[in-house]
């Protein structure tokens, strides 16, 4: 079977003897936030434990150095102060061989201090890390064609900024700098992969499936040309049986009679640029004397960058003892997760002659090289019972263009296929993904991750189906919406309650929808030359990757000073704020000290194999006998994973601390005095423990401050620090631990370290051998079965959007009058952050629906001339900034966990807009974006 680099799966890149240290850099910025006016602590939180502003607010609003991009060598402690700068030259064609660079445009004093070509890398043993995923070469070799448009051919390094700046401006846009020879064979890689998810239910939604990915298998295959070569149908192995099931669905569609609606439609969703405001950048100093690679890089995946950098350098001629990576706040919407750019920064550092080298894309370069959203071509077929208005089956054949490096393309394709059902229950389904390579700029992780493309198509098609069935679009959706306990198209039952009907009912009653026809008539009568339309889109989006891991730590001293450490760092979503608030909600005490982006955890000596998607059950069963083994060490900041998955580590750490420290310490205080003290007359159970007004109480016991509890815990030598590691494979790992007098405890974690208080016995203190902590070997562990990888997803957050817009018949321009969104995301940790995500996601979706577009090839971003003058981003005037509204369904109870919602928020608005345009002018559109030109053409 093909080795699959699924979403965020990554090859384990361990190098014996190379230490890796990663730390979140802007400690000063954070310290400033905590210690400067407006006064923090008391002022930061308002009543109810909610924050008055973001943890990072003051640093950001005052222009403090917060982003990796803000730092120069002079700002980094221990670095040389002289800063070098680098830029790259790029290939803008792939049909002719690279023949070298011509720097004749540069006067002698502007020649680079160092020119780096592929041949230098070969001589020095510098090779691409993780071949395939990151392509095969950094720089195009002389005599070969570029693998993709925009691929770098050379790096120019300058030891001062003024020369660098002028040289770069001189060479920019010149067609004569990169020289080409004759025609050469294509070096674009072979197509990346193909997968198919087939399901036939067992007659009812509850019955065991006849075939599904979860029960049986995902069907994988290779290509002939650009066509996937699916296995033959049969009754042999699971893949053959899957193809038999697929054939059965096709036959049913082919044989459909008049009682069925068979609707076949094709859709296209375009490539776009994420246009993160902070372009890719890094600053790397390789100190040959000490063998330390110091780096300051913008990334969403610092652990991966450090590990892979270590592999890359250690294989070269450059001696390496350690990698010291610092990260700033950043933003990428996924595109800074497992991107190749940080390794170009490493290259720059290696050739800096001992000086720190900064490589920072300008916007043209960012368009030319940054990861793009995948273009999708989608062919859908719906089979619908005309009488019931219910789906009998749906099939989708999807092709996505990954460009010239694989990156996460295969994963994006499969995630798109598994999302295509949108919010509907499908008794039979067959969704396939063909992930194609091309000479386009490489595509990778980006907010929406394939689901934006496939769900938008389904939601546009559902509206058309409703029209053909003579049904109200919301009523049609209601008849087909997934209900709690129903299976998805992989055969897995989604987590918890499905609340789509509640959302549909609210949408149907909203004035935008209920008054749409009256408003249309009224508006159009008053505005000749304009057409009014209302559209609806309703989706749910998975969050997480199926292999989510994290670490969190809480410890306190005898005075109650609480320190919180976490692997999470800040990509703009407010993760550092919400993780901190979650601690406060459970302990009644906000951390006094925080450390985010922490990836070095010497107190957790875990052994990770980092093959969570591909390891067999047999191998995993063998590995898990080692109490220090875990499937993966930590996750990047991506996949809407912070509040739920990374937050799970926070919540578990706090809950374990309650169990092992707060509860026994509080009980001890409440039991003081004769006859068992104040606690004796009452029945006080663990489940009675509550946080009230920042204190701990239970069943009318004296409220205790955290400081009082901390003092008692230290006096008794109880646990006073807890570090946990968590793992989720569409279900949480759980483990049991023997904890002396705390007994045999089971937590939803797979590894635990504890620290004992000041008065702990010498025997206990002797156990604290892991960087001052006791790593507690688990007594047993339960990991979700590996077959659960085939579930594709079990966690969803739903959102629907109603859009009200106007089309100008003359110009074709679309103007949004208002929009209203309804989302369900469990318990909101910080409602202001949730609302900010909703508003930001909507804007990004509006851009995708109406404006943003990149050609894939020679006239596309790889040519180095794209910027925001011709790539139009939505501005405030485009998003109905003053009139948009949103509502969040209240949680079912206060025990609802928060749901990851940073991606779903951008999707529903896309089909809602297209459906509204159809309502306005009576024309359907199948290709995004729906530009003014396309509308004018349709109206002509």
């Amino acid at each position: 079977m093909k080795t699959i680099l699924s979403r965020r799966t990554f090859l384990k890149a361990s190098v014996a003897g190379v230490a890796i240290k990663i730390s979140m850099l802007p400690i000063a910025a954070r310290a400033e936030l905590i210690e400067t006016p407006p006064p923090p602590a008391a002022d930061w939180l308002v009543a109810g434990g909610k924050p008055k502003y973001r943890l990072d607010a003051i640093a950001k609003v005052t222009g403090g150095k917060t982003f990796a991009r803000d730092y120069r060598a002079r700002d980094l402690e221990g670095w040389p102060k002289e800063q070098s700068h680098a830029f790259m030259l790029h290939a803008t064609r792939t049909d002719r061989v690279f023949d070298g660079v011509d720097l004749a445009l540069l006067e002698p004093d502007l020649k680079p201090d160092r020119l780096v070509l592929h041949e230098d890398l070969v001589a020095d043993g510098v090779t691409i890390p993780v071949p395939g995923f990151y392509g095969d070469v950094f720089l195009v070799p002389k005599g070969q064609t570029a693998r993709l448009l925009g691929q770098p051919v050379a790096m120019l390094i300058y030891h001062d900024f003024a020369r660098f700046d002028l040289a770069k401006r001189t060479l920019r846009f010149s067609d004569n700098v990169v020289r080409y020879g004759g025609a050469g064979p294509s070096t674009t890689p072979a197509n990346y992969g193909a997968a198919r998810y087939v399901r036939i239910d067992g007659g009812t939604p509850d019955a065991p499936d006849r075939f599904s990915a979860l029960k049986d298998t995902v069907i994988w295959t290779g290509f002939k040309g650009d066509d996937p070569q699916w296995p033959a149908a049969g009754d042999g192995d699971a893949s053959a049986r899957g193809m038999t099931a697929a054939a059965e669905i096709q036959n049913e569609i082919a044989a459909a009679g008049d009682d069925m609606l068979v609707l076949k439609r094709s859709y296209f969703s375009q490539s776009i640029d994420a246009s993160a405001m902070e372009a890719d950048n890094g600053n790397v100093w390789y100190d040959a004397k000490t063998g330390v690679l110091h780096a300051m890089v913008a990334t969403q995946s610092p652990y991966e960058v450090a590990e892979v950098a270590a592999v890359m350098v250690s294989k070269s001629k450059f001696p390496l003892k350690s990698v010291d990576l610092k990260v700033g706040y950043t933003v990428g919407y996924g595109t800074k997760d497992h991107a190749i750019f940080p390794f170009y920064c490493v290259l720059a550092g290696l050739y800096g002659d001992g000086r720190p080298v900064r490589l920072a894309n300008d916007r043209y370069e960012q368009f030319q090289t940054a990861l793009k959203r995948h273009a999708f071509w989608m062919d859908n077929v719906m089979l619908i019972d005309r009488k019931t208005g219910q789906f009998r089956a749906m099939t989708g054949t999807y092709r996505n263009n990954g460009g010239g490096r694989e990156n996460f393309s295969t994963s994006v394709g499969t995630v798109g296929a598994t999302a295509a059902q949108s919010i509907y229950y499908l008794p039979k389904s067959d969704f396939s993904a063909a992930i194609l390579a091309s000479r386009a700029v490489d595509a990778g992780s980006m907010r929406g991750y394939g689901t934006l493309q496939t769900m938008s198509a389904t939601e546009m098609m559902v509206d058309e189906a409703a029209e053909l069935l003579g049904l109200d679009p919301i009523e049609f959706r209601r008849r087909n919406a997934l209900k709690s306990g129903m299976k998805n198209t992989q055969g897995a039952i989604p987590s918890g309650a499905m609340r789509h009907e509640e959302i549909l009912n609210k949408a149907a009653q909203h004035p935008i929808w209920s008054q749409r026809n009256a408003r249309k008539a009224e508006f159009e009568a008053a505005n000749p030359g304009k057409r009014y339309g209302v559209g609806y889109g309703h989706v749910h989006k998975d969050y997480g990757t199926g292999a989510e891991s994290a670490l969190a730590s809480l410890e306190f001293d005898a005075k109650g000073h609480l320190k919180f450490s976490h692997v999470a760092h800040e990509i703009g979503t407010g993760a550092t704020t919400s993780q901190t608030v979650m601690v406060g909600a459970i302990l009644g005490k906000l951390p006094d000290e925080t450390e985010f982006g922490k990836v070095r955890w010497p107190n957790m000596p875990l052994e990770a194999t980092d093959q969570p998607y591909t390891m067999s059950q047999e191998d995993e069963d063998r590995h898990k006998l080692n109490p220090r083994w875990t499937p993966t060490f930590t996750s990047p900041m991506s996949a809407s994973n912070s509040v739920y998955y990374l937050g799970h580590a926070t919540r578990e750490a706090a809950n374990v601390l309650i169990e092992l420290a707060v509860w026994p310490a509080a009980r001890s205080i409440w039991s003081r005095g004769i006859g068992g003290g104040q606690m004796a007359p009452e029945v006080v159970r663990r489940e009675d423990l509550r946080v009230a007004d920042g204190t701990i109480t239970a069943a009318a016991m004296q409220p205790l401050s955290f400081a009082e509890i901390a003092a008692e815990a230290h006096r008794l030598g109880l646990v006073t620090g807890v570090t946990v590691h968590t793992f989720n494979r569409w279900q949480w790992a759980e483990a049991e631990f023997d904890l002396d007098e705390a007994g045999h405890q089971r937590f939803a974690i797979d590894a635990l370290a504890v620290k004992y208080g000041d008065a702990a016995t010498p025997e206990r203190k002797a156990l604290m051998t892991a960087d001052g902590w006791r790593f507690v070997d688990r007594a047993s562990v339960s990991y979700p079965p590996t077959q659960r990888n085939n579930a594709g997803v079990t966690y969803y957050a739903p959102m629907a959007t109603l859009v009200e817009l106007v089309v100008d018949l003359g110009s074709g321009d679309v103007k949004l009058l208002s929009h209203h969104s309804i989302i369900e995301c469990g318990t909101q940790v910080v409602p202001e952050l949730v609302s900010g995500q909703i508003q930001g996601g909507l804007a990004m979706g509006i851009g995708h629906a109406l404006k943003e577009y990149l050609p894939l090839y020679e006239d596309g971003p790889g040519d180095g001339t794209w910027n925001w003058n011709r790539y139009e981003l939505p501005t405030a005037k485009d998003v109905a900034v003053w009139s948009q509204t949103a509502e969040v369904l209240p949680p079912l109870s206060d025990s609802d966990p928060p749901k990851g919602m940073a991606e779903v928020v951008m999707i529903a608005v896309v089909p809602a807009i297209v459906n509204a345009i159809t309502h306005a002018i009576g024309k359907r559109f199948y290709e995004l974006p729906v530009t003014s030109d396309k509308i004018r053409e349709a109206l002509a």
Partner: protein
Amino acid sequence: MTIVTRKLSLTLNDKAIGPIDVPETMMMQDFLHEYENLTGSRMGCGQGICHACTVVVEKDDGSLEEMRTCIVGAHWFEGRKVRTVEGQAKLGTDGEIVALSPVQQAFIEHFAFQCGYCTPGFVTGATVLLDKLKREPIERDAVEQTITDALDRHICRCTGYVRYFEAVRDLVLKTPGLVKA
């Protein structure tokens, strides 16, 4: 020698700077970043589109103007009074922040930004708008449109603009003298 320099002097965040030798072709943004270590005025597009790089220029009559630094050469600022985002808050004697500017305070209280990369430009744009309204108050029913017209040129990719705009509206409405009675 290809690089021709000239002396540059200006007032930057109330401090006299220069004369410094600065290349004639250097953009103000690069001067701020590389010569003055003021990186708050951010590189977004380098084309004058996104306005993440803007600074306040104080004119002779005391009125404020918003200037893009990615497309305006450093030497254009010769002799001028410039305020970057780093100079908006009031600082104490040790450089600590004593008080945020009203715009900054409004932004943090409204959770206006997310990644914060574009925030310096919005702080600058809103500060200049407030200064303009101080001189030319507007009717209440023109507030939203005025804010939209003033700040629409600022690009933000995270927030959808809503919380920025609401923060500015609240500030305009609660600051005496900006809206006609």
